[in-house]
């Protein structure tokens, strides 16, 4: 299979992720979109690694997974706390830190 197809898929997934982050209001969905973007990038790394026959991209993909896992823990904790205090997971309502 043409390795470019993997990259095209990764680009499509990344775009969906960006779109989700920009337009959705629910914090959980935004979070999922962020994860989607990370995984799109992982896919591109792995495909590139397979293409070149080296392991570098694979290693980076592992790193990204670990970081994403850690980030999920912190991020979800914040979202849960916000939800508890405000009874809502809308990211537009949690906009107190402004000018």
């Amino acid at each position: 299979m043409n390795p470019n197809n993997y990259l095209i898929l990764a680009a499509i997934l990344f775009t969906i992720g960006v779109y989700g982050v920009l337009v959705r209001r629910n914090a959980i969905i935004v979070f999922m979109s962020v994860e989607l973007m990370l995984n799109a990038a992982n896919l591109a790394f792995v495909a590139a690694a397979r293409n070149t026959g080296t392991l570098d991209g694979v290693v980076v993909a592992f790193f990204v997974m670990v970081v994403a896992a850690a980030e999920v823990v912190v991020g979800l904790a914040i979202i849960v706390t916000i939800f508890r205090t405000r009874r809502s997971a809308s990211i537009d309502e949690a906009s107190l830190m402004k000018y």
Partner: protein
Amino acid sequence: MIAALIGLPLLGATVLLLGGRRTNAWGHFLAVAMSAASFLLGTFMFMQMAGKSEEEREVGQHLFDWISVGAFQVPFGLHLDQLSIVFVLLITGVGTLIHIYSIGYMEHDPNRRRFFAYLNLFVAAMLLLILADNYLLLYVGWEGVGLASYLLISFYQQKPSAATAGKKAFIVNRVGDVGLSLAIILMFVTFGTVTFDGVNAAAESGNSSTITWIGLALLLAACGKSAQFPLQSWLLDAMEGPTPVSALIHAATMVTAGVYLIVRAHAIFDLSETARTAVVIVGAITLLLGAFIGTAKDDIKKGLAGSTMSQIGYMVLAAGLGPVGYVFAIFHLLTHGMFKAGLFLGAGSVMHGMHDDVNMRHYGALRTMMKITYATFGLGFLAIIGVPPFAGFWSKDEIIYVAFSQSFIIGLATLLGAGVTAFYMTRMMAMTFFGEARWQDDVHPHESSAVMTIPMIVLAVGSVFGGMAMLFVGDIEHWLEPVTGFAKPEHSVSHSVLIPVTLTVVLGGAVLAWLRYGRRPVPVEAPTNVSFLTKAARADAYGDSINEALLMRPGQYLTRSLIWFDSKAIDGLVNGMAAAIGGLSARARRLQNGYVRSYALTMLGGAVLIALVLLLVRL
């Protein structure tokens, strides 16, 4: 020993100023005692000095190192020589007499203690001025007498005119002080020292233009302190102070400090023809200007003030003539100190009897009511117009003689000045003591008490015999010669021609004044339809108007435009920049809207931009 001369009056001033009201009862006696003690000590030192041979007469006292910074070494040293000692005797002698006189004159003044404290302070500062052995310490005394003068001119501080006069004197004096500080700075830069000995020794080696500039700066200083043209305007207003102050500070001692400075710095003036010429011109202008102002004043004290300016003009002129004149400048200074102090005390005595009225048009016929004042004032009058053998004759005649030896025009100016002096003094005599009584209704003239008349009598005796005593007994020419140098003028009109001519001119002035003011009745109100010259003299030769038009108004415009520039341009720039940054940040703040999604969009935009740039640069 020398320090004690200064220390005694300084102690008096300190006790009286710090002691406050507790010293009210005996304060004036303490002040008199301190001044008298200083005089006795001065007399003792004079005797001691006179007993020594000429080379050993100069004594110094090094108290401590005052300023010691790198090459700049200024000792706090005092120095007593033939020139200082005559000043010591004049200042403490006349000073003590005036202290005694003030006991009577200030008897009913609630602030008498403060007055005596300032008088003591003045005596101390003046002694420091003439005993200092370097120019910087002289400057301290110079400022000290300026301070005392300011405090005493504005002594009647409840009178706005007196307060203003004090400030005026202080400010005009500052202009002169700039000259003195410039001179001191130049001396240090050029010679590396500011002591009299150091400067005298090094002066020869200095380059001539620097020497001239130092001389001119010293002349500016002398002009300020001695009320010489063009800084003369403060002296007439200074008459707002109590009369003993006018006698001591603004006639006998402080105003002559400028002459002392010029004579003390003779090493500088000996080397610079230009500076000497400037001094002579200033002296000649002032001697005529002061005499001119004196002719039209109805205020007895202002008349005498004009006369003081004029007489100091004589001294400055003589000092500017170089080694032929220094001695006679000092000689005239000493005789003038005696007769002018006597005249002022006489004027004070008249005022005391006339309810502090100073207008001579309200006097008249006082010779019968105030016999002692009349006699002492009369003797002072004969001395100042230069009738032989009174004191003023000897000194003024010598100055006229020396002036003729240097330049015919300068000689003529001094001769004319002598005539005008006779005119205004005779006018003053006639308006005060002769003619018909023009007293105001509630005035009952009476002779002053003994405490006031005795100093007047002593000074009158000085006015009669002082000149002869100094010339024939003291041999003042050779007494001062080691300090100031002395030279006989080479060729001049001979004394046998000059004395009759001078006396004729003096007599002419006196007769003219007598015909106008003695024979004819004097109107009580000053006539208004008078010539331009009289108007000019009444307005102090428009000195104030000239200062106002030339300096004050432009100064005010300058200040106002500077304030405008400061508040509009400088502040506008700074405030405008702050406002612009503030406005911009208020707008930039709006970017922080709190919406995570908009931050994410910004991030995306940034990332896209970076990607684009990378693509464009790489490819």
